[in-house]
């Protein structure tokens, strides 16, 4: 740079580089697809290493578990421990088989009611590289028929939805991300309101009126109104309720352990999941449309409209989940075919 003193060169360079990145930011806000190429290259370059790392850690864990961890114990202790371990293992196996049987029974129910919903198991190979977002990377991508906006669950509950798909990998926006949202309702009162992330481990349910009865410990399940997740999948449990103006401030602990995800299930469908009405034994839970009270009686009241306008603000970044979820329940909903604790995910095991 002629004419510029050499000691000022770096300041000009700093200003230029920062300005360029500000422009890059502005471009991305204007157009969603801007910068995708850089992401595709970076993710493409890093994902093979992440896969390899995942594979390697798996082997390392196995090796550690089966060899090194036991090597330094004395022989006698080893024998006693082994006996103890065997007994424990048997108990655990029996326990796990019992749990699995329970889970499979629930899953069978889930599958029966969603026979047309293809699912795919996937392994988590990476997380977000920064704390500004809550995303995970799966080892399945467009080659496995994964598409944007597909729902992701685990046996414990809802995880999030696919936000970016590459050839062999895909990215999931976790429920805990600020931009995340899912159509939800309270397990007991069936009051509907979207649940979203707040950038911290707990979720937030924002649009429950002060006069609605909500209890700490109450389950929160999917409402199905987001057209991504079927009804009655567990989202979490209410841990804190504070009165607010005009809505309560409700915090929810997610059912799925979103900080320790290793395997998940992708719901391979973009069509709204249809509810099966003929599930035997399923208790006819009151839907919002049929429920007497302010929710059902006033579908056009200010509350849902407020929700709608609130979610509309971040239309581009947010899931379609937050859109439909916010709409008043106009369509009559069938009784929930899936038990509230349905562990849908384990129906499909990750390969």
């Amino acid at each position: 740079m002629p004419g510029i003193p050499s000691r000022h060169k770096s300041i000009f360079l700093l200003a230029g580089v920062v300005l360029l990145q500000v422009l890059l930011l502005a471009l991305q806000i204007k157009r969603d697809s801007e910068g995708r190429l850089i992401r595709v290259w970076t993710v493409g370059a890093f994902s093979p290493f992440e896969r390899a790392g995942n594979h390697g850690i798996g082997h390392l864990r196995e090796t550690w578990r089966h060899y090194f961890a036991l090597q330094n114990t004395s022989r006698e202790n080893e024998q006693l421990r082994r006996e103890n371990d065997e007994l424990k293992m048997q108990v655990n196996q029996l326990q796990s088989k019992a749990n699995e049987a329970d889970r499979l029974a629930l899953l069978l129910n889930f599958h029966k009611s969603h026979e047309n919903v293809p699912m795919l198991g996937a392994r988590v190979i990476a997380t977000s590289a920064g704390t500004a977002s809550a995303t995970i990377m799966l080892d399945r991508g467009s080659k496995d028929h994964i598409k944007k906006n597909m729902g992701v669950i685990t046996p414990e509950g809802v995880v999030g939805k696919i936000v970016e798909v590459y050839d062999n990998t895909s990215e999931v926006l976790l429920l805990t991300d600020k931009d995340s949202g899912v159509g939800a309702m309270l397990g007991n009162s069936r009051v509907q309101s979207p649940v979203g992330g707040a950038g911290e481990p707990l979720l937030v349910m924002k649009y429950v009126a002060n006069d609605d009865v909500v209890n700490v410990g109450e389950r929160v399940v999917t409402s199905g109104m987001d057209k991504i997740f079927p009804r009655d999948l567990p989202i979490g449990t209410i841990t804190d309720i504070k009165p607010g103006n005009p809505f309560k401030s409700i915090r929810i602990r997610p059912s799925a352990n979103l900080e320790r995800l290793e395997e998940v299930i992708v719901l391979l469908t973009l069509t709204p999941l249809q509810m099966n009405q003929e599930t035997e034994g399923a208790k006819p839970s009151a839907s919002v449309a049929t429920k007497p009270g302010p929710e059902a009686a006033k579908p056009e009241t200010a509350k849902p409209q407020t929700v709608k306008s609130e979610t509309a603000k971040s239309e581009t970044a947010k899931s379609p989940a937050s859109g439909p979820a916010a709409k008043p329940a106009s369509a009559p909903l069938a009784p929930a075919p899936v038990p509230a604790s349905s562990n849908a995910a384990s129906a499909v095991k990750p390969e």
Partner: protein
Amino acid sequence: MNDTFDIRNMESHIEVHKFRGGAIVGATLLALMFQAFVPVYFAKAAMIDLPLLITIYFGLSRRNPSTGLLLGMIIGLLQDSLSGPTVPLGLYGIAKTVIGYLASSIGARLDTEHPAARFALTIIFFGLHQGIVLLTRRILLAQSSVWFTMHLAAAAVVNAIVAVFLFALLDHFRKS
């Protein structure tokens, strides 16, 4: 390169360090890999911002503001790319560019070899980094964020402790 010699002449007591071939690239890639991969197994590891620590270390060691800010920009943009589509490219890029510049500018004026100095500088740079990210989010992206949480304070201390050991490890890759 000339800048490097200028600094040498101006501050004869401050040494400009060079590194073995591939050390900077290798450390950068490893840090990004760590950031994206390890939290899958140890959720708390997400608290450590290794790309930031790498930016600070090479900034302090190379003591060339232009190199520092460009390295910070590259590391930041790569981190943005690996942070999912909700993080726009440039969020960490801008923050790490500024940190790279400041670290190399300070490195050219102060002796930053002592562990206590490194500890203190890392806390300051961590705070600055968070501040820039937050300002970018608030001003450029119109997103709300809290200024201070205990989690952030703990993260600053944890990163500073990690930095002391990491920097000592990276010192071995210097050309003697």
